[in-house]
């Protein structure tokens, strides 16, 4: 059973547009929600993370929105750039060590 569900599987966005990736979870014990960015040939790298005590966290062009009651969270990439083309993973954890990943979203930004 998949604990973190991620959509869409792939996404194509025009340069300058907004990229939106959505995730949902079931386990209410999760209290740490990181997003990872992975480029080909590299391992995932932490992009931004949020705890459930806040509803939004912004770092530069990247924003996480968190809806605790709906058990959903999303990543918004503003002013998307070709360099943002990568695979993005949402994830969750209840102990900060064992990270549960979504299946990933392959994002392609058109120049």
């Amino acid at each position: 059973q998949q604990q973190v569900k991620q959509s869409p599987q792939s996404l194509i966005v025009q340069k300058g547009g907004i990229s939106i990736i959505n995730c949902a979870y079931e386990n209410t014990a999760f209290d740490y929600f990181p997003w990872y960015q992975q480029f080909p040939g590299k391992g995932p790298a932490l992009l931004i993370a949020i705890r459930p005590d806040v509803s939004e966290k912004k770092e530069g062009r990247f924003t996480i929105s968190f809806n605790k009651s709906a058990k959903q969270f999303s990543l918004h990439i503003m002013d998307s750039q070709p360099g943002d083309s990568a695979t993005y993973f949402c994830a969750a954890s209840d102990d900060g060590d064992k990270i549960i990943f979504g299946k990933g979203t392959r994002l392609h930004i058109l120049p």
Partner: protein
Amino acid sequence: EAGVTQFPSHSVIEKGQTVTLRCDPISGHDNLYWYRRVMGKEIKFLLHFVKESKQDESGMPNNRFLAERTGGTYSTLKVQPAELEDSGVYFCASSHLGRGDEQYFGPGTRLTVT
């Protein structure tokens, strides 16, 4: 500062053979993790070391997998005997403090079992 390194980057072996993957964490990181991504699936947690001790090995698929971290530095993950379903990318990650401290991932080892 060097990142997490993994060796080999690729390995192709036949079913029934043995393969050993190695991970060198960032120097000073006590916490070391192994994950695996089978094609088309999510990245799955395998286990977590704190120094040389296994803190959580709940994700290890079966007893064909053996992870060690002697001396609390580098770690090895041995698969013996390998099966077709073991094919995938094996990632290692390390963190300094654990428990939500950032995990730094290595580039992964792509294992193909034929």
